[in-house]
């Protein structure tokens, strides 16, 4: 075995374990916890460093070490020596390729502290996994290969770590053994990094020269770097100051997870206190409703508590029967959070499929899940030059600033003030994948007190005057399914019944309002969004709006549904098989599409997502247009 792997670590097992286990356990129980990540460019030695830390802190058992020794011979990158990276790169694909793909969480403890370290991948392709690791870290060790200096990924990871709010940074210039522990080269790299760091607002960081492979400056100061006067990495990790009670000093916030109702006599609100302190007797407020009450008990399995602080999972009961449910936020009565529906956010995109501006996504923030549409970015950031680059969308790994609009006002705080109420994930409605991570900067307008201009003439009174209930009859189906024909008949019949209607269809809209739009996915979405907005105004005017658009995407139809008042969106699925529609081909469009003359044609080279639960389902193989129209009227006006 080589000299490096047999070298005794300076971290010996705590003597108390053998002599007085009870004393040891009490001591261990009160150790503080540091969560950190290693990050930086590909092959800079992140996994190797963590393997080394685990090994030196005696966290590797004999059987694990034997397995790694055997693996090192098979996959190792260090000849006959132990490849420490194999202690962390646990997936078969990682071992075969010698790279890290996903975050590994490892645990170790020294006499002073306990650690959870997340080893993150350097490859740009897997940046989302680095962000995953960074989101829960108190400190980041940014590695730099001494031979290569500061690289794009070094900058990207530094930028992301800073953006996500990690304020303790260690810059470990690694592989010092390969440059003969050259002091000048080290200084040059640190100077280059400092320049970049300052420009992104990083105020300070702790640089150190190390070799994860040889063990220099890892657990003790190395003789190879006599010019280095700072601490070893482990000394630094053990002593870096953590403000673990900082969240308690902030205002009280508890996002409600679950309403606890074991029987009629008990109604409690369960959640994790995200900041502050609450006590029985405190006057509290529930957001967004703004209702107030008083805390009567803080209930836990171990008995009622005299107070609950940030970081505790508890159940509160109130003196009054106020409405409070999952997604609401409980605060002290005189320290409420803001409520808004439009925000400027930082957004990190994590999906191979680029952001589609205007499309509706799910957003999960705290315990709330809401529909939101994301605007085209104001700009994206070039991590090398830090330039703000104009962009129409966000591609995989892009970092940008944009506005989002939620479909209802939500309680929130700026990410900088409260991560739990300012950080969110973006979920694709079709695939359910987590496609982005966002951080709220501020709300664009406070809807807390400012409501929509309350009009003296209400939408209800306008509809009433017309002796009808306003609504949107939304026809959807393939081209040639019969949407326009049936919609026209329905409108005629309604007119005969003295109803006030308006028909919006592809032709009258495409030639005016939307003449700037084509047929790409993004344009189709914008087309429907605008139609939705117009339809909404018309329902406010008390009209029955009839629309006939292919509207192929489920999420856009749902977007319109969410825009109009509940119950006013009637989705009517004109169901015709592609075969039948193509057979009819009244306008000859299918033929053109098949010949490749028409691009993005629904059903041919662009998908049609059929409604799953339309209010009305018309099977055109069984009904004539006239029959279909009668059926629709019968359903609308019973």
């Amino acid at each position: 075995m080589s000299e490096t792997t047999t070298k005794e670590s300076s971290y010996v097992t705590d003597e108390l374990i053998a002599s007085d286990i009870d004393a040891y356990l009490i001591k261990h129980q009160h150790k503080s916890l540091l969560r950190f990540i290693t990050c930086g460019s590909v092959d800079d030695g992140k996994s190797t460093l963590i393997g080394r830390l685990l090994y030196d802190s005696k966290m590797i058992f004999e059987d694990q070490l034997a397995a790694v020794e055997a693996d090192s011979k098979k996959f190792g990158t260090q000849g006959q020596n132990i490849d420490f990276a194999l202690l962390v790169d646990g997936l078969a694909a990682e071992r075969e390729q010698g790279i890290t793909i996903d975050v590994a969480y490892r645990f170790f403890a020294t006499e002073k502290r306990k650690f959870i370290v997340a080893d993150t991948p350097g490859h740009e392709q897997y940046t989302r996994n680095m962000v995953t690791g960074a989101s829960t870290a108190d400190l980041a060790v940014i590695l730099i290969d001494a031979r290569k200096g500061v690289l794009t990924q070094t900058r990207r990871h530094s930028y992301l770590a800073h953006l996500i709010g990690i304020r303790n940074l260690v810059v470990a210039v690694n592989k010092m053994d390969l440059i003969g522990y050259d002091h000048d080269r080290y200084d040059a790299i640190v100077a280059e990094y400092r320049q970049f760091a300052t420009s992104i607002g990083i105020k300070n960081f702790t640089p150190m020269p190390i070799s994860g492979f040889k063990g220099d400056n890892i657990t003790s100061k190395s003789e190879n770097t006599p010019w280095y006067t700072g601490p070893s990495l482990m000394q630094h990790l053990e002593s870096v100051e953590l403000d673990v009670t900082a969240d308690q000093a902030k205002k009280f916030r508890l996002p409600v997870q679950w309403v606890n109702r074991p029987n009629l006599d008990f109604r409690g609100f369960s959640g994790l206190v995200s900041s502050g302190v609450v006590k029985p007797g405190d006057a509290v407020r529930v957001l967004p409703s703004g209702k107030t009450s008083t805390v009567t008990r803080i209930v836990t399995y171990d008995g009622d508590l005299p107070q609950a602080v940030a970081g505790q999972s508890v159940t509160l009961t109130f003196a009054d029967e106020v409405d409070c449910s999952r997604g609401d936020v409980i605060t002290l009565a005189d320290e409420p959070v803001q409520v808004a529906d439009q925000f400027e956010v930082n957004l990190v995109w994590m999906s191979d499929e680029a952001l589609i501006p205007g499309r509706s996504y799910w957003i999960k923030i705290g315990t709330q899940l809401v529909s939101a549409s994301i605007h085209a970015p104001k700009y994206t950031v070039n991590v090398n030059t830090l330039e703000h680059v104009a962009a129409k969308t966000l591609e995989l790994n892009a970092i940008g600033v944009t506005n989002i609009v939620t479909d209802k006002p939500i309680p929130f705080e700026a990410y900088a003030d409260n991560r739990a109420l300012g950080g969110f994930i973006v979920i694709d409605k079709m695939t359910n994948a987590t496609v982005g991570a966002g951080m709220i900067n501020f709300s664009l307008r406070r809807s807390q007190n400012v409501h929509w201009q309350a009009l003296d003439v209400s939408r209800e009174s306008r509809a009433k005057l017309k002796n009808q209930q306003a609504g949107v009859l939304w026809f959807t189906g393939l081209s040639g399914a019969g949407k326009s024909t049936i919609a026209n008949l329905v409108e005629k019949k309604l007119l005969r019944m003295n109803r006030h209607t308006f028909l919006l269809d592809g032709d009258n809209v495409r030639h005016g309002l939307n003449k700037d739009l084509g047929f790409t996915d993004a344009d189709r979405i914008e087309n429907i969004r605008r139609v939705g907005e117009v339809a909404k105004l018309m329902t406010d005017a008390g009209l029955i709006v009839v629309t006939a658009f292919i509207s192929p995407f489920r999420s856009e139809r749902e977007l319109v549904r969410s825009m109009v008042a509940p119950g006013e969106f009637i989705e009517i699925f004109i169901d015709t098989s592609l075969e039948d529609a193509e057979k009819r081909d009244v306008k000859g469009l299918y033929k053109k599409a098949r010949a490749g003359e028409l691009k993005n044609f629904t059903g041919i080279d662009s998908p049609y997502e059929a409604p799953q639960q339309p209010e009305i389902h018309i099977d055109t193989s069984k009904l004539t247009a006239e029959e279909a129209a009668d059926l629709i009227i019968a359903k609308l006006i019973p």
Partner: protein
Amino acid sequence: MDAVTDTVTLTHLQRLEAESIHIMREVVAETEKPVMLYSVGKDSAVMLHLARKAFYPSPPPFPLLHVDTTWKFKAMYELRDKMAQESGMELLVYQNPEAKAKGINPFDHGPLHTDMWKTEGLKQALDKYGFDAAFGGARRDEEKSRAKERIFSFRSTNHRWDPKSQRPELWNIYNARKAKGESIRVFPISNWTELDIWQYIHLENIPIVPLYFAAKRPTVQRDGLTIMVDDDRFPFAPGEVPEMKSIRFRTLGCYPLSGAVESEAKTLPEVIQEMLLTTTSERQGRVIDKDAGGASMEKKKQEGYF
């Protein structure tokens, strides 16, 4: 009332407890039909205890599922029934009928035993009841591919895990949305270590199977492991007699597959002391990890093992 609030420093275990409770409540709020896999081991004991805390004063709003192999230690069956009763939760016991019919056992069928009773049994049970989320007591410190797994881990309709396309998991926000037929395995004690588990059991006085403590028990040697003879189904070699030894277990599974350690540790602090001074990992006593080489656990999980 006192205007000045004393700041409280939560211990590491208090934070872990709060995190696990938060995870369990998210699952109950966001999935349709959750279940807790209950294997009666120490991790299950902690998980069940946390569930009781999470929903108190309600009983945990999901059943316990024991995927049984018929080869667990007798003491495990006893504790299982007792804990189900005490917690007021429904206990579902599932035994793969095919494995039962074929008489699959650890002596004659090697890896097939785990495969049919546990992996297949679990898939069948989840499908039978239509559970869309299952809590499991796996920890990241147990094994290298577990160290890579998310807290919310998705399984396709045929229960496969795809380690290369895990969803990003940021802060403590969990995306529980899934398509019909897909399900989630949720690991609320992902961030606990073996030491945390023992220490918590100690502090909270959680009932565990007595086999975790040393006592004189009948043993035989098999493939380098010390196996305890728990019933008369054990096939002896001609002339073989079990030897009485003071042993205990670090992990419990099927009795013919669980390797014991010789020990005198009769109390929890003694068990913890031995654990901290030992030089081998807890999974070393498991036959199951050894049958398929380096990436065995990862492969098993891809096939639907927990």
